């Protein structure tokens, strides 16, 4: 048996996630009360028996480097294989930064040189799903495909955000259109999960690298070209939950979906554990007078107030008399006494002053700075922001990372913006 090897593309800028991915790559964005988005892909790999993985980073890799490290939580700290973080580096042969997804793999082809694999699995670190890649391998081999693309049906409204495929009944792909305007192509979207024949991959990447007009992207360039030429490209229809948490709204919805009685993924399944790097924290502590329902509360939290319909991350403290409602609150954020956090996403290590109101009022004009991403009424508070006591923050407001009490002159109106120090990056 030959081995298996996977590349995970984890360079995602995630610009539609606004503040959440300002200082971290999208795969490092916290999700589901204790995970990072990339944990799902990494865990899928090890649960599928793939223990040899290269993670390609580019945009703000620090948080990912820290998170993945030598791969201990995933049993990827191995003598043979394991996980390798592949950052772009200037070299004589290649340009330098990764141009597109295809270029990123092209620049790392040397990692395939000595690996005895027939196929190469290429994944994205941006998605939340549970998938046994063995099924994909079996599908690929039984079709004698050169490339198998995993696909899923997406809602009509979202078709324009994905690469959309048309297939014959046997799965053979006949058309591919990246981010189409209309619905003519159907609703089968590429999940960014590709299984390539190793030799075909190398051939096609070398070919693409030589095309000056190409943006060197799988979705924009390589796939359309292969499909147009009638290469052996097959689509594997993935039947289960798959979520691209691309926008603030979808990020919010996807997190809160885990509060339902029938969550989209069973995170408690002992046969398919989602692994993550977690600090040693004591169990969640519920004080007298705490009132928590319909929520996710991990170890390290300390709750004396009211929490409902919310996802908390480790180390969050909710003081007596405080209310957290319909919100996502990340690691080690403190919600002060009597404060109310309503429909907000609060990043790590923020401090909400006593009696503050985050997400106040009925009006919600879109955010002044990013109207296209922040218009559904959510308030976003950046990492380490300090909100003064008694401050009132309207809906669709954006509070930058690392702002301090003195940066606020008055309450923040709906759609308002308070920016933090730019130089902190």
């Amino acid at each position, binding site marked *: 048996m030959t081995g298996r090897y996977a590349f995970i593309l984890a360079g995602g800028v995630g610009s539609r996630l606004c503040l959440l991915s300002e200082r971290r790559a999208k795969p490092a964005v916290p999700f*589901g*009360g*204790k995970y990072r988005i990339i944990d799902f892909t990494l865990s899928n790999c090890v649960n599928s028996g793939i223990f040899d993985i290269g993670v390609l980073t580019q945009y703000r890799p620090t948080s990912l480097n820290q998170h993945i490290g030598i791969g201990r*939580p995933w049993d990827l700290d191995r003598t043979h294989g394991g996980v390798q973080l592949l950052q772009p580096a200037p070299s004589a042969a290649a340009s330098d930064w990764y141009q597109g997804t295809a270029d990123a793999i092209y620049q790392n082809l040397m990692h395939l040189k000595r690996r005895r694999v027939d196929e190469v699995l290429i994944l994205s670190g941006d998605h939340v799903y549970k998938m046994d890649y063995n099924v994909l391998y079996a599908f690929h081999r039984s079709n004698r495909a050169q490339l198998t693309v995993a696909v899923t049906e997406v809602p009509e409204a979202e078709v324009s955000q994905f690469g959309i495929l048309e297939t014959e009944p046997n799965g053979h792909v006949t058309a591919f259109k990246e981010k189409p305007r209309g619905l003519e192509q159907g609703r089968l979207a590429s999940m960014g999960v590709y299984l390539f024949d190793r030799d075909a991959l190398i051939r096609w990447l070398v070919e693409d690298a030589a095309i000056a007009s190409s943006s060197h992207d799988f979705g924009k360039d390589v796939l359309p070209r292969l499909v147009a030429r009638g290469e052996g490209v097959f689509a594997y229809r993935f039947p289960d939950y798959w979520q691209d948490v691309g926008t603030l709204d979808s990020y919010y919805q996807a997190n809160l979906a885990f*509060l339902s*009685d029938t969550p989209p993924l069973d*995170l*408690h399944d002992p046969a398919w*554990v*989602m*692994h*993550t790097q*977690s*600090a*040693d*924290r*004591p*169990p*969640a*502590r*519920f*004080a*007298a*007078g*705490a*009132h*928590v*329902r*319909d*929520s*996710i*509360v*991990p*170890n*390290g939290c*300390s709750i004396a107030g009211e*929490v409902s319909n919310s*996802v*908390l*991350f480790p180390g969050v403290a909710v003081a007596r008399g405080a209310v957290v409602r319909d919100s996502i609150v990340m690691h080690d954020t403190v919600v002060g006494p009597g404060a109310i956090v309503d429909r907000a996403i609060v990043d790590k290590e923020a401090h909400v002053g006593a009696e503050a109101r985050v997400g106040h009022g009925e009006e919600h004009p879109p955010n002044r700075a990013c109207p296209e991403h922040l218009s559904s009424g959510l308030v976003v508070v950046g990492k380490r922001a300090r909100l003064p006591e008694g401050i009132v923050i309207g809906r669709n407001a954006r509070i930058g990372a690392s702002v301090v009490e003195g940066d606020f002159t008055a309450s923040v109106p709906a759609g308002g913006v308070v920016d933090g120090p730019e130089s902190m990056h």
Partner: protein
Amino acid sequence: MRDVMALILSGGGGERLGVLSAERAVSALPFGGKYRVIDFPLSNCCHSGIESVGVLAQHAPASLNDHIGAGRAWDLDRRLGGVMILQPYQTRSHAGWYRGTADAVTQNWSILEERRPDRVLVLSGDHVYRMDYRALFLAHEQHGAAVTLAVTRVPAAQSRRFGMVTMDGSGRVRTLEEKPERTSATHASMGIYVFEFGVLGEMLRSRPVDLVLDVLRPLVESGERVYAHEFSGFWEDIGTVGSFYAANLELVQPEPRLQLLDARWPILTRDEERPAVVVGGHAGIERSLVANGCRIDGRVESSILFPGVRVARGAEVVDSVVMADTVIEAGARVRRAVLDKYVRVGEGAQVGLGDAAGPPDLHWLAGLVLVGKDAWIPPGGRVERPASIGVGGRYEDFRDGALTAGSVVGNRRWFEELR
């Protein structure tokens, strides 16, 4: 600290802990919602800069092997030093269970000789506390002591559980009495000793059995420089059901004397990967610790819940300690009970009814219901307290669905069911 080796004694089967220690050492007993008792001394070692640790295990060593492994969780998986689990072993000339604490050290003396520390720190694996051992070494050095013991003040009524120590004004130990019924001494030895390597080695040559009776006491009586160092923080010997229960419940006091939430001195443990706690729409949780992996839709009050516990809608858990993956089904009520792992409390069952003191020979139960691993309480079943249900207890153990106060049900072996 390269010049120190710690030895953690995890001897006792802890007979007084009944079903809780039927299949595990006391030091492997789950504590505080996600820890094992031995995590406390191991974490103290880690944070005090001790890099070389031996764990002397006799009773149910598998439970410790499993938990400690190569010592990763405590950064004790090292090339130099690190943690070793030292079990009784056979050689061609000798096969010996550990006859006592001193004998356990003697039988492993060759390992100490190999590592050649200047000092040996003897600890117990059965104690819950947070202590910086560096303070102890400092005192030891300042006194130029041969041995230094850590002592703590205990109520007079507790003296018969401990070795009681009296000191002079400089801290030098004058007397050491083992478990006296009555004494004027106010301080108990915590079972924490710093020995000069040579002093300990010399004493072990006569093949002593017990560290206190055969090593420490003779040293005190012969006028050696034995000093006491007072520790005033929270410290509990998990030697009885009552102390186990009380130390757990201490954690949910409004101002607990034992703090777990401290980023500078975290208690480290071998952590399983479990999702965050899911709190349902009908839950009410107060004054409790709830670990990752729990799913709570009922009422939880003044209790400690370990990973993976499920409390169904309408169920109630009050004043209890519930270990990993135990399920409390809808409408069941659990009060003043310690439920071990994988217990199932059936729908509408009631555990911990009444408040009878129970017969005198069951005082060790401290008025609680103990339920052993894998036991099933039938739906609608009633268990009065105090009572003890053995490992793997089944419906047949109940008469008319009930166990009256003072009932003790023995352990079952799991494979008996397979016949």
